[in-house]
């Protein structure tokens, strides 16, 4: 069971930013040397503050971006530098569900066309395609009749369902869920999460679930990786991560989550970070978290801690944990 579907080794993705005003072009180190595995059938959660590189990892894995460096092994194939032609046969195994249900559907395509788009790359007859589409609509809780409607006529939650149906249509092995619920209302979020979970059970899907809502990630994920400024700082199983956070950032992050339980909220010991996230263009030398870390030691100033497995299935990148 614990067979990796995706292996990521020393992945780097830098973006060149054109600075018309200054002398040189600079690089945003959106993802900087990250390694982890995603096992078959599991949900791997990725959390972290805005701009820390979560989406970039996801998009690099699905090869929407070309990695700057590193290896991506998908289903046993190294796809990190594969050309588009070679990638083609893997494409249908990797699907994406996006954050913004308004921006992820072409407003000028009907629901049928939208779900049909990935199907077109397969060799399926038109009739079969229709049947597949009807099936999918039903599965995600929409009506058959919706096939001829346009995204603009649906609410956010419904659109997200269309997005899910589209992702499922080609029977992928892996789905990247990039904050699929953050644009939705609380009551709708749960609907979408439940659908995702049900489908995973039904089809044995593997998810990379990106979110900055820690409780949601906790809820859906088997394992979680915590990111900070382009780096993975801690990886653990979902349950253990919350019980036993080791990295100071993870601790702070967890204690920042507002808890919908007044008594618990009152009694807990919160660790509140000071300051803001530094720019990923010139991240701090040494440990990237040092500027906001209470437990900083001298070593953090110069030496960048590596992500190391300290227990089975639990890795941390902090000098204090050794």
């Amino acid at each position: 069971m614990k067979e990796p579907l995706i292996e990521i080794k020393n992945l780097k993705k830098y973006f060149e930013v054109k600075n018309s005003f200054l002398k040189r072009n600079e690089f945003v180190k959106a993802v900087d040397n990250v390694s982890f595995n995603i096992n078959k059938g599991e949900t791997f959660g990725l959390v972290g503050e805005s701009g820390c590189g979560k989406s970039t990892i996801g998009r690099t894995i699905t090869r929407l971006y070309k990695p700057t460096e590193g290896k991506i092994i998908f289903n046993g194939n190294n796809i990190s530098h594969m050309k588009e032609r070679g990638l083609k046969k893997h494409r249908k195994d990797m699907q994406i569900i996006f954050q913004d249900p308004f921006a992820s559907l072409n407003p000028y395509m009907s629901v049928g066309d939208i779900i049909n788009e990935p199907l077109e790359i397969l060799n399926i007859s038109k009739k079969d395609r229709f049947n597949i589409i009807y099936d999918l609509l039903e599965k995600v809780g929409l009506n058959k009749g919706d096939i001829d409607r346009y995204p603009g006529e649906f609410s956010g939650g419904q659109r997200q369902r269309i997005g899910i149906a589209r992702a499922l249509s080609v029977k992928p092995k892996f789905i990247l869920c990039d904050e699929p619920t953050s644009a939705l209302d609380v009551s709708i979020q749960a609907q979408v999460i439940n659908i995702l979970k049900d489908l995973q059970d039904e089809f044995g899907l593997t998810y990379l679930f990106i979110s900055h809502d820690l409780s949601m990630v906790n809820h859906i994920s088997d394992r979680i990786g915590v990111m900070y400024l382009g780096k993975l700082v801690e990886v653990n199983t979902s349950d253990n991560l919350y019980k036993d956070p080791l990295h100071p950032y993870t601790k702070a992050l967890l204690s920042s989550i507002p808890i919908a339980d007044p008594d618990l909220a009152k009694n807990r010991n919160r660790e509140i970070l000071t300051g803001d996230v530094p720019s990923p263009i010139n991240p701090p030398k040494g440990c990237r978290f040092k500027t906001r870390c209470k437990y900083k030691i001298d070593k953090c100033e110069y030496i960048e801690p590596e992500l190391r497995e300290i227990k089975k299935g639990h890795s941390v990148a902090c000098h204090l944990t050794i």
Partner: protein
Amino acid sequence: MTNYILKRILQGITMLIIISIISFTLMHMAPGDPSTSYISPKMNASEIQAVKERLGLNEPIYIQYIKWIKKVLQGDLGYSLIDFKPVTQVIKSRLPATVGLMGSSLLLSLLISIPLGLYTGKKKGKTIDNIITTISYIGISIPSFWFGILLIYVFAYKLNLLPSVGMRTLGEPDSILDVIKHGILPCIVLSFSSISIYTRYIRTSTIVQLNANYVRTEEAYGFSKYKIMFKYVLKNVLLPIITILGMSLPNIVTGAFVTETVFGWPGMGRLGVDSIFNYDYPVIMATTMLTATLLIIGNLVADILYGIVDPRIRNMR
């Protein structure tokens, strides 16, 4: 900042060179050339050749171009092939008329369009807004020569209030007042369309700014409509106008081909048209390059100015 300016200047120069090559080639590749006005039917081939030689038209285009640009770099724009005066002198004699006319039209346009734009933006959807918007539509849709002739017909001929053509009353001593009197009608023609354009621009910008979140904040702190409008919104609305002004700079040279022709205004626009009709290459080139230079400088200055006034950009630098 200095780096940026230097880079932009360098870019500008490259652009100018490319523009000069394009214009030069276009012009010389087109059929016909200035020698036609010197060649009389009685001339034989060698005499025609001599005329072309005298005008410097017998060599291949690229050599002509190199010769031309060499001279330009030394500040010599050559001689007009028509009245055989140095091009610089020709332009110098025409520039003030155009700058005066376009400058005052620009000023007038701003003076009218800013309040009008703010007002209509504020009164969006009201009758007065609809009226002004409709007028501004007419302003950008009316052929300017027709408008010009109509004005001359009404104000100069029917009402006899203003002079019809030219820049001065002949035979009277030069006076600013006289020039202004002559300039009123062309200035109105030129301003009508630019007022329309600016007003619409400012109106849209005002509507956008009035809907901005910061306005809500200011309202929530009890500032009056007027204070919000004239202190907080105004600055946000006016900043982008700098860009428009930058782009209007070249109009000062050539924007008035038609209007100057209608009103017999002795400016660069007329010069441009005349030089085209007469194949006066050096003048055409000079006019083109002057306009392009002004456009590039205008944009650069606008960008820099914008950067200086707009804090958001200022700090980026």
